[in-house]
């Protein structure tokens, strides 16, 4: 195996990397600060990859590895869809498809006091935000945004929830709007909530709309923008028949 002596980061950005690749050699760079996101590790003078995926760079100095998995690793400030598993005295236990259950404090709601604690049954679907995610500790969630307002967080009623990969959830949340959601939105009325942990919730008036939207999203993971539009149109035609 040959070792690349001076790996400049720009050669690896937006390319697929595997664990063990050295992407940046710190000794060859001048005094710069680099921020490392998920999937990268510092080994004395070299930055090596820990996770398989594509290396991404955002100005001015942030690098991270993006990969699509079924498993979710909790990160701070992610919005996820959780399912209530149990309730304790001072927090709810919520499953967010991570390695351990997450805690949602009973007071982490807008205007939450000891007197108006919400009663969530086991199996309730919640749209929550990850507040603390340290390795080894259970992640902590919240149903408010950073300023304390409710901001659409909370329990999702009716509708249909399905699971997908983390890469697909990121694509659905990308801006500008991803083509499949755009073309569906032009023809069908529906509401959707996407969790970065690989869960998507869809709600619409008629069940057939919900099924078409769910199938379209599940099919769109490996398709390009144009292919997604064609696929959506085919599905909508069948719906009209």
């Amino acid at each position, binding site marked *: 195996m040959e070792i690349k002596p001076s790996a400049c980061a720009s050669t690896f950005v937006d390319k697929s990397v595997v664990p063990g690749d050295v992407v940046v050699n710190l000794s060859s760079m001048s005094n710069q600060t680099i921020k490392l996101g998920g999937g990268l590790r*510092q*080994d*004395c003078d070299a930055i090596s990859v820990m996770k398989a995926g594509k290396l991404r760079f955002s100005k001015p100095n942030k690098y991270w590895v993006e990969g699509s998995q079924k498993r979710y690793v909790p990160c701070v400030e992610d919005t996820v869809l959780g399912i209530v598993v149990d309730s304790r005295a001072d927090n709810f236990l919520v499953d967010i498809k991570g390695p351990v259950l997450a*805690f949602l404090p009973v007071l982490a709601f807008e205007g939450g006091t000891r007197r108006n604690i919400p009663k969530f049954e086991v199996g309730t679907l919640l749209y929550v935000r990850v507040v*603390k995610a*340290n390795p*080894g*500790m*259970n992640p*902590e969630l919240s149903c408010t945004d950073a300023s304390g307002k409710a901001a659409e967080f909370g329990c999702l009623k009716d509708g249909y929830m399905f699971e997908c990969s983390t890469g697909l959830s990121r694509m659905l949340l990308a801006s500008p709007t991803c083509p499949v959601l755009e073309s569906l939105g032009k023809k069908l009325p529906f509401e959707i909530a996407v969790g970065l942990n690989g869960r998507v919730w869809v709600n619409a008036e008629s069940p057939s709309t919900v099924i078409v939207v769910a199938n379209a999203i599940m099919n769109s993971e490996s398709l390009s923008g144009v292919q997604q539009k064609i696929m959506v149109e085919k599905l909508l035609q069948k719906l009209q028949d």
Partner: protein
Amino acid sequence: MREEGEEEMVTPGEMLGKASEVKAGKGAYVADYRNSGILCVFSSLNGLRRTVSPSPDSPDQRPTIEVTGHKAHGAVPEPGSVVIARVTKVMAKTASADIMCVGPKAVQEKFSGIIRQQDVRATEIDRVDMHLSFRPGDIVRALVLSLGDARAYHLSTAKNELGVVSAESTAGATMVPISWTEMQCPLTGQIEQRKVAKVGS
């Protein structure tokens, strides 16, 4: 096994004498001999038995029989003793630790300790972030506050000389303390936050 002087090796359940003639001390108990109605003293540990003569002014003139097992000479944490412990789990409001030494002596059996959020430091105790004070695997010096509950002793690090004594960074190197809240990894230069103990004069 050789007998050493007056001491003899006994095993659990071995009869040491009649309850009317001897008293049961540490490591021994009184029970009915085979449902006969005669109470006898039996050993409850594997160890050496010793007879302690009674003090002359006590009303009960029976000698006491004691059995010392292998754990009897190990150290046991008492409230007020300074212990060295290894952190096993860090949670939102508590950190669990396994006590390894009491003072200068190592322990012979497992003792668990708990450090609560309000006992981590002396100032601003309600704004303590447990994850920025301890990590699993850290070696801490702590003070035993109380016997706590059946599961664990209550420990405190709320003094300058108490806290993390030795910790490993995520890169695997032993970190060097730089202040009472930070330690630095010598390999990568990354700074991690801990509640550091002040070591030295």
